[in-house]
């Protein structure tokens, strides 16, 4: 067991006050989970930190928030602990270090992704092909060969899925989570994720920017998440079209892949803009400012992926298509590569934390009704 971080020790001290106060019980899943415990292991702290959605409700309503001597600021400490857990459970373990300077790493990977795609295309293809206008089925593959797309995309995504899976197992064991009922808690957690219930504050919203309630963050996050999922669906449908239906890209504007991708891309842009705005104007105290670099870098990457995708749709019949396609695919590649090594990984651990919380709640209910 590694020695405990300052943030973990600090947050434990906070929770000892919280557990005797309990005014925040109505806010989110963290506080009911807290009341089930009297003592908090390192793993418990990581579980609670990943359960926290950073809504800041508990900070703005806290009678012990700074400048009170207790100085309680759970959202900030939890954000730091979350990042430390990403680092600790990353696989391969050596790559956990990327969370120390995540903004730099994600930006560099994005730049390298673009450069790699452009260089490879330039090396493989004749300049005339790269800058020429292409139309009709297979136009994209004339610029970047199909095999290259599959090797790069498939390879990077496959590795990321493996890394995420190992990370999930390491997190589950490392936080001391126990086996239990599967189906019902998984359903609870899925509903929590699909509705982002914990950012609802019970209907009125959460403290996006100050002590007033709003739902900007919740809507923006869901726009980004559903947009991302639509884009993923677009790619999946396109793969089916390509391999099983022998329909080669580019597809018509009203075709299913293009519609999914267009709406998905637009939603992603909206989501990124909303989240970025909230991040800029929010009260700087209940957040972990040292992590903003990685968060902004990921938002920028997602923005660029969506924006270049949409732009590609607009100019795919012109001579600019070749270069833009290379840039877009370079960015997608970077996103795939950084899935386990950027803020994107929060989805995995948050999901597991929601699942464990639902498990504990159901076990608790079952034992109290016995």
């Amino acid at each position, binding site marked *: 067991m590694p020695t405990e971080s300052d943030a973990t020790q600090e947050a434990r001290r906070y929770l000892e006050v919280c557990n*005797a106060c309990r005014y925040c019980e109505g*806010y989110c899943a963290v506080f009911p989970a807290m009341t089930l415990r009297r003592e908090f292991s390192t793993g418990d702290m990581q579980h609670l930190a990943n359960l926290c959605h950073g809504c800041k409700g508990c900070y*703005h*309503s806290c*009678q012990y928030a700074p400048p009170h*001597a207790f100085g309680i600021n759970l959202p900030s400490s939890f954000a730091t602990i979350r990042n430390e857990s990403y680092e600790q459970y990353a696989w391969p373990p050596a790559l956990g270090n990327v969370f120390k300077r995540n903004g730099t790493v994600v930006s560099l990977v994005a730049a390298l992704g673009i450069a790699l795609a452009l260089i490879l295309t330039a090396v493989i293809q004749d300049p005339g092909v790269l800058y020429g206008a292409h139309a009709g089925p297979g136009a994209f593959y004339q610029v970047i060969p199909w095999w290259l797309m599959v090797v790069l995309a498939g390879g990077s995504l496959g590795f990321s899925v493996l890394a995420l899976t190992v990370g999930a197992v390491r997190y589950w064991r490392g936080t001391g989570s126990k086996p239990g009922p599967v189906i019902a808690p998984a359903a609870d957690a899925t509903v929590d994720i699909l509705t982002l219930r914990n950012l609802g504050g019970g209907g009125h919203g959460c403290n996006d920017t100050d*002590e007033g309630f709003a739902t900007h963050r919740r809507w923006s996050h869901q726009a980004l998440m559903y947009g991302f999922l639509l884009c993923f669906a677009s790619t999946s449908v396109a793969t089916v079209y390509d391999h099983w239906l022998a329909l080669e890209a580019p597809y018509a504007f009203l075709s299913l892949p293009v519609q999914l991708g267009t709406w998905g891309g637009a939603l992603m842009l909206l989501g990124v803009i909303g989240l970025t705005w909230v991040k800029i104007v929010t009260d700087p105290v209940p957040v972990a400012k040292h992590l903003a670099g990685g968060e902004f870098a990921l938002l920028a990457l997602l923005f660029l992926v969506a924006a270049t995708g949409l732009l590609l749709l607009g100019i795919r019949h012109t001579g600019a298509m070749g270069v833009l396609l290379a840039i877009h695919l370079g960015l997608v590649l970077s996103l795939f590569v950084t899935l386990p090594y950027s803020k994107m990984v929060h989805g995995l651990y948050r999901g597991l934390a929601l699942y464990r919380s639902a498990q504990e709640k159901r076990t608790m209910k079952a034992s109290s009704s016995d």
Partner: protein
Amino acid sequence: MLGAGGLIGADRAQGGMTMPDLGQVFDVLVVGGGNAALCAAISARKLGASVVVAEHAPKSLRGGNSRHTRNLRALHPGPTDVLTESYLEEEYWDDLLRVTKGKTDEHLARTCIRASQHAPGFLRECGVVFQPSLSGTLSLSRTNAFFLGGGKALVNALYRTAERLGVLILYDTEVQHLDVEDGFFKEAIVSYRGFPNRIRAKSVVASAGGFQANRQWMREYWGAAADNFQIRGTPYAQGTVLKDMLSGGVQQVGDPTQFHAVCNDARSPMEDGGLAMRLDCTPFSIVVNKNVERFYDEGEDTWPKRYAIWGRLIAQQPDQRAFAITDSKAVMNYLPSVFPPMRANSIRELAGMFELDADKLEKVVADYNAAVQPGSFNGQELDGCRTEGLTPPKSNWARKIDTPPFIGHPMMPGITFTFLGVKVNDKARVMMADGKPAANIFASGEIMAGNILGQGYLAGFGMTIGTVFGRLAGEEAARNVRN
């Protein structure tokens, strides 16, 4: 985006880039910045008055004792979304009569009780969100409406509403003197962000709380013991306005020597520790003073009913100190304490940790254990598990203290509020010592709660008085200006 613009505007005003015009004559000056003050300010503003609020605390510590509250007690004829069953006037009145032992003004009390039915609705209109009662407070789910996030969330909502309506809020503004002549308020002498200033207004609402945080004043009645009283709430409850009004010819209510106190952890901050510092281990422990003597029946009644007497009991012990002694069996019977209890493998070792006479503590525990009668323990209700032949007895939840680790909690009194106040009538208008109502002076909140609560306390009733009389005071002050 509009919200952000508004926020920047407000921050500028705070930063002093745009100075508020204190040269003008306001319709209503509200002194104080807690629930009662804000309810008054909002109510006056809703009737069209120009309103200024003078809050002594900085913005981050605004809200007086309301910041530490969590519910209010509301009459309701039937179930609501957050209150169960019904709670009617007679039962409410009986509850009040029981805790005050008759030290109340029936007319004012019933006025307050009746109006309490509309208090949650008013607060909800001001953006306050309610929730079902919290764990460990199930005994209050029928009578008390809980604020989601507690009192600070309520305070935040009230300030936002007041600002939106155009109330001018001055933080770091201590009202030092109200210039009153023959029951007529003229102006307030203030310290505005450290500089002397004055605020002129056609009427004034005093909602500046009690004087419990003023140790010098407390020492007048309690001597050196006052230095060992922890102040649970805001350190800004200095009683400056209260003292000024009483010496300026306003009629007094309440016993100046009396206060509400609970049993706090002795290691709590001396001020502003709030509710989380209270200990509720008493029914599951034996409690000794510094001379290692038990002094009261720890198991007399359920904790919610005995919660408030233990502060006073401990305040009367030498050095205002007490020690709850129990064992590992009891730990899950009460809420966790913020500061971890002392744990020891023997009573002797525990005595050493508290610097108590070890022989004596071993004897007290042994005598107690010998007196414990067999019974079936039930932490949730009066279980009749008692001692026999012990003085004072322990009437319920008496179990032998015999299972290490032994647990000890050090205790001190935590003062919630003082009972001294200014006399008001049923329109929240302040009464002068000569029996005449003041021309343009009103009061709400703790500064006048002693009219209704002469002694004792009912959970959530302070916020009820604050909301009901805050609204009354604000409306009457606004109407007063018009006439």
